């Protein structure tokens, strides 16, 4: 009787061990999957990315210099616009909100041209091809320079994990304001006015 009991216990024990092994394997696989899901954050798509929903703030900093090729093949540098208020707008052909504000930019560019205001549109999706970029820019009625990004300029401006992203640069080359996402037309105009006004007092005597 005792032998039967011991034998029974052994069978139960082995069965339990087998179950534990199988359960462990299953749990490990699921845990691996979950770990892998989280792991992707360790490999950022672009260097310089920050935490969720956040992006590096560039306000108050000197605008990083760049030299890029325009859609019509010209070399355009930010330095070419030294002493002028400039709006640097990053956009992409797949970005709906970007395409909404581009005609507004065009309108404000004409409106504030007398104050030296200029806009540079930086296409963040060069892989879409020049033709697609030109098509979207033309459809939006854009005549300001559209520049093709080189992968470096995005990082210099903080990694750009949100589009549209705009940097309002005053006459002294300082970023007065940085905006992410689509704002209202009134907000955009107010920021342009602020950018034109910024640095103008220090420039007044000299120019």
């Amino acid at each position, binding site marked *: 009787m005792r032998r039967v009991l*011991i034998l029974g*216990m*052994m069978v139960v*024990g082995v069965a*339990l*061990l087998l179950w*534990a*092994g199988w*359960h*462990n394997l*299953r*749990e*490990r*696989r*699921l*845990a*691996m*999957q*979950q*770990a*892998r*899901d*989280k*792991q*992707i*954050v*360790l490999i*950022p*798509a*672009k260097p310089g*990315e920050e*935490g*969720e929903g956040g992006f590096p703030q560039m306000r108050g900093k000197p605008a990083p210099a760049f030299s890029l090729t325009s859609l019509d093949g010209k070399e355009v540098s930010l330095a070419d616009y030294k002493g002028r208020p400039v709006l640097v707008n990053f956009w*992409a*052909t*797949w*970005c*709906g*909100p*970007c*395409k*909404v504000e581009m005609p507004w930019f065009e309108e404000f560019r004409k409106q504030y041209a007398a104050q030296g205001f200029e806009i540079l549109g930086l296409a*963040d999706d060069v892989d*879409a091809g020049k033709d*697609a970029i030109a098509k*979207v820019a033309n459809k939006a009625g854009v005549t300001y320079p559209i520049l093709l990004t080189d992968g470096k300029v995005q990082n210099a401006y903080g990694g*750009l*994990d*949100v*589009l*549209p992203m705009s940097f309002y640069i005053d006459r002294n080359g300082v970023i007065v304001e940085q905006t*992410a*996402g*689509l704002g209202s037309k009134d907000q955009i105009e107010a920021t342009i006015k602020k950018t034109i006004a910024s640095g103008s007092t220090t420039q007044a005597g000299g120019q």
Partner: protein
Amino acid sequence: MRNLLLVGLLAGSSVVQAQMGTLTTPTVKTKQYVSFAAEEQVVKAGKKSVVELRFKVGEGFHVNSHTPKSELLIPTNLTLKPAAGVTASAPEYPAGTSYSFSFDPSEKLDVYTGTFTVKVPVVAEAGAHTVDAVLRYQACDNAACYPPKSLPVQVLVNAK
């Protein structure tokens, strides 16, 4: 003998605990806007079956469907890597729903929001298999868009 058994059982369970412990990774903030629900898929060995991959789009976000209405938009696309013992056919995508940005009601988009399921027809040999795949998508919220992302997923297929 009884004591031995008990010791054996205890040792076995502590191994389980130890192995589980090493795999519990700390939660890290993610920049993804779509997540994958990892579920083991049980299919019949050697038979045509369908594996369902369930994805969830973050609240407040949308991604283009597999067939967006403009060639400029980036479609949601699943790429399966070859896996030994599993023959997978082209994924089948759900239809999207119509969506327009409030600031541009004239442009109709075709998007996924909430949860969506991609079905993959497979024939798997008996046994447990792991199929690696990548979901490429591009997300937007109501005022901004986010660069295209690649979400690596691992599909566990158990063919019996």
